[in-house]
């Protein structure tokens, strides 16, 4: 190692160390940068990141109609059997049988929030919600039925 290289090493080291200290120093003197959320205290004003996924929900409009055709694409896409779809056959006005959704069973306790079901859905019937307060006293309560009672498929969704 030549003398020049040695001196260069020393200067480089000091420079990079100072660069690192500048970053932490900036944060120290700008407390507004703090990102900690004091959760139970700020429950009303809590803001979650857009990418945060809490659970799968089925979208219902004001007429209590959803867009699920009962195609079971989400059930097939799910890597760990979280979704179980029970279908039934509706009779259409022109007398034909048509496959339709009876019960959308969702096992929250098995779900890893991987978003694959939402991506698999051809009609955009399900989506990810940001609710994360899932704690219950009985595990059975985590098995949810996503389609609301009395809901039916929106007209025109195939």
């Amino acid at each position, binding site marked *: 190692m030549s003398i020049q290289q040695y001196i260069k*090493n*020393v200067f480089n080291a000091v420079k990079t*160390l100072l660069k*690192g*200290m500048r*970053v*932490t*120093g900036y*944060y*120290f003197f700008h*407390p507004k*940068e*703090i*990102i*900690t959320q*004091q959760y139970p205290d700020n429950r009303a004003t809590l803001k979650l990141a857009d990418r945060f996924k809490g659970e799968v929900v089925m979208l219902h409009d004001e007429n209590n109609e959803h867009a699920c055709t009962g195609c079971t694409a989400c059930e097939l896409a799910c890597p760990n059997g979280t979704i179980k779809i029970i279908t039934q056959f509706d009779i259409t006005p022109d007398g034909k049988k048509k496959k339709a959704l009876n019960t959308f069973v969702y096992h929250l306790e098995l779900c890893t929030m991987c978003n694959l079901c939402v991506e698999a859905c051809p009609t955009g019937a399900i989506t990810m919600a940001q609710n994360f307060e899932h704690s219950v006293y009985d595990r059975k309560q985590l098995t949810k039925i996503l389609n609301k009672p009395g809901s039916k498929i929106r007209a025109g969704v195939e």
Partner: protein
Amino acid sequence: MLNTISFEAIKTAVQQWLNMHWGPHLAFIAECILIGLLVIVFFAVLGLLLVFMERKVSAVMQIRLGPNRVGPKGWLQTSADTLKLMLKEGLTPDGADKFLFNLAPFLIMIAAMLIMVPIAFARNFQIWDINIGVLYISSIASISVIAILMAGWSSNNKYALLGAMRSGAQIISYELSAGVAVITMVMLTQSLSIQDIILSQQNGWWIFKGHIPAIIAFIIFMIAATAETNRAPFDLAEAESELTAGFHTEYSGMKFALFFLAEYINVFIVCAVAAILFFGGWMPFHIGNWEGFNHIMDYIPSSIWFLGKTFCLIFLIMWFRWTFPRLRIDQLLNLEWKYLLPISLANLLLMTIIVVLKWYL
């Protein structure tokens, strides 16, 4: 002095009162006990304060909030921690060398207390102005290595032993460059006594008067001091991710707390020494012969000057800790033997030339 309520005034008043009411012998013994109590109380307060400061500083640097639940703004967090540690069981492992295992935390605290002796906290407020102050500090500091080695060995735990070995190698190597940096400054003051060193900075601190070599010595001293106190980025001795906790793996309860406290006391001490050597200890900020300016600076009490400087340096060391990643053992020894030691020796030579030619201010 202008300020009537200073540490010096309190000291003289207490001394007078004791000597007036009791005999000289009894007064002497009472003073000894009083000083001992003061040091212990100071240690406790300092420990609580520095741990809290570290947690807050680290939190803000990592964009977190830090402790904020116990007491107003979390001020009582460290007291609560201490209470918890006191209530915990002080375990001694079955295979440990029980005598040495229990002795080590006390030895490290005794060493820390002894170093406190020559440090001047305010104008004429010092336990003992020993004529070799700086040398005394560096000599007593070497006792704490033994305590660490003792703790590591007697725990009968491989992590503890490895941590102690690393700590020993590290402290012994970095003592060299810290010592050379101190010698560089002692050459300017031409005295080892803390009092003389501070008084020689009456017309400006050495870091300004000694310019280039003093600044280099300061940087080297701070690096070596960080290493000697076993703090990140030199915390190989207690590297959590590889050695669980290093030499104090097996300690719990109050014995662990003593090690923890000793670490922070040592940080305070090295920063106090740096403040004395480079920034004039309790000496206010004076510029040459600007009488008016110097006079205004004298209005700020000397104890505030000393503690302010020391805490600024402590903040600097904390800043190091929460910025830099840990070094590997070979990088650590390379840094010392290939960089710090040659540079500090060359710096010593430079300082010799400057002192001989009287190029300092």
